[in-house]
């Protein structure tokens, strides 16, 4: 599936070219700066004119922006603005819901993941996802949960190889020391914070290039939250992370880039430091300073 780099470059250029035209064409309020803030060579995942629907309800409206490679991108915004929906579009999970539909392009390595020839199952192996509520498989042990991506896909691998992958994934998720002596206990026996790290390990075990996290800390206490935040920062040295959060301090702490959404649209996107110190849009400023949302 990997394409030569030139193609990615080309696509990005076309994206840039299309952006203002599109905005003008439909008279939609799109900031041209939204895609320019990320230099072409740093763009890993490009979202281009994406719309998402639940039946007739238009939940995500014409969003265009690019995720920087090996950086953490935070998506913030008031409840119901479409953050989760946008995130689910990025690994083709949105379409799993009833009557849900996506328009537009999302480009990974120069290839549109919504192209007809693309198998959504393969997209999801490259772009992992962690959910708001920890959801370990209740019928599996801790080890089997971590290796679920292999076991459920009946991947043939040696026992030692799998054990090693399991350990590596648990270490990356900062859970190894706590569970190394109880790998055969049910995954649901762990605490909420441990379960969430187990789910992160499960996603990491299949070596995704991009990790999407939908409010991964909202069910956790401050201590467990701090651990996950550290983890996110560490992970971004190896992979590209997109994190949806309700918590502005969290966005400020963990992310390099921040996107602000309102009513299905992306209002502003830029480096986190700029967003929190000198927001360009007054709605962003109002939200960040807590005047609404």
């Amino acid at each position, binding site marked *: 599936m990997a394409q030569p780099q030139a193609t990615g470059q080309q696509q990005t250029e076309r994206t840039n070219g299309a952006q203002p035209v599109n905005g003008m064409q439909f008279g939609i309020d799109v900031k041209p700066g939204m895609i320019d803030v990320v230099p072409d060579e740093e763009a890993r995942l490009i979202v281009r004119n994406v719309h998402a629907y639940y039946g007739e309800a238009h939940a995500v409206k014409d969003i265009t922006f690019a995720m920087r490679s090996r950086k953490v991108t935070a998506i913030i915004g008031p409840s119901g603005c479409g953050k989760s929906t946008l995130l689910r579009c990025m*690994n083709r*999970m949105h379409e*799993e819901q*009833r009557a849900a539909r996506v328009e537009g392009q999302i480009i990974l390595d120069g290839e549109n993941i919504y192209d007809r020839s693309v198998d959504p*199952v*393969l*997209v*999801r*192996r*490259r772009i*992992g*996802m962690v*959910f708001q*509520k920890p*959801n*370990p*498989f*209740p*019928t599996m042990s801790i080890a089997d949960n971590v290796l*679920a*991506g292999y*076991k*459920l*896909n*009946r991947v043939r691998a040696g026992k030692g190889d799998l054990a090693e992958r399991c350990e590596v994934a648990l270490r990356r998720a900062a859970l190894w020391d706590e569970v190394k002596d109880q790998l055969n206990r*049910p995954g649901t026996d762990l605490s909420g914070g441990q379960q969430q790290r187990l*789910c992160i390990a*499960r*996603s990491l075990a*299949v070596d995704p290039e991009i990790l999407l996290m939908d409010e991964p800390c909202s069910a956790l206490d401050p201590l467990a939250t701090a651990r996950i935040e550290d983890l996110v920062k560490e992970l971004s040295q190896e992979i590209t992370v997109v994190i949806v959060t309700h918590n502005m301090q969290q966005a400020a702490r963990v992310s390099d880039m921040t996107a602000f959404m309102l009513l299905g649209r992306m209002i502003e996107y830029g480096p986190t430091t700029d967003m929190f110190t000198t927001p360009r849009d007054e709605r962003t400023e109002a939200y960040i300073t807590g005047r609404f949302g």
Partner: protein
Amino acid sequence: MATLTGRRGSFAATRGEIRKRRIIDRLMVGSMIAVTALVCSVLFIIIAYIFYRGVSYINWEFLTSNPRPVGSEGGGIVNAIVGSLILVGIASVMAVPVGVGAAIFIGEFPSPRLQRAVRFMADVLTGVPSIVVGLFAYALIVEPTGTFSGWAGSAALGFIIVPIVLITAQEALRLVPGSLREAALALGVPRWRVIMLVVVPAARRALLTGLILATARALGETAPLIFTTLGNNFWNTDPSRPLSALPLVIYRYAVGPYQEEHRQAWAAAFMLLAVVFFISLMTRVVFRSRYEE
């Protein structure tokens, strides 16, 4: 100043209110206990009475020999026990995949109209009197083949099992949290694998309950067997010829003129209960996973 005995305006209730609440509480708990005891005692009386009437006749000969000619002492029901197991076994093998498959189909590939239609038909099917089901199997199999047979009896029992399994399986699958499905899909597991390896195992216990319910019901059905498998006084394990069955034996012996036959009817009833109990126990043991208490 608020005191525990309470005055108007404070959070504490007055002594009278507390007493009233306590009385209502006791009344409710008491009536719940009474109702539960009533249900349990009815069950207990039935089982105890069958045990009392039946167990005294159970002996090795009764369990291991075929019936003797009418009116003579001794003889047993081994052919009926085996016949019942064969009939219900064939019926389950035919009907359970159909019922569970249909439940998976309408649950996982949702079309509200199809769901309602299938559910309605299943409800109607459970309401069809079993004698009518027997007649149907008679017209469908006995008439064309020109002979009573175990196959015809199994088919009739199958018609009774399908809707029960379908309805219980549908409920069981609906109770599996969507978050498990999502977790597996997000790992890049194809949909049919998610269903077979995550959803069905998670619903296993409830599916099993439906299965036991359906087989127990089929084991006890008499009417659909009368003009399909007919019954047989001799040893037979070939389903293309008439098979004996426990309910048929109970029915024939209970209305027979001899004391000996009545005693055998009670003993057969006891054996029928024992077989149902044994099957549900075995199914639970076999399918119990190490994560269940």
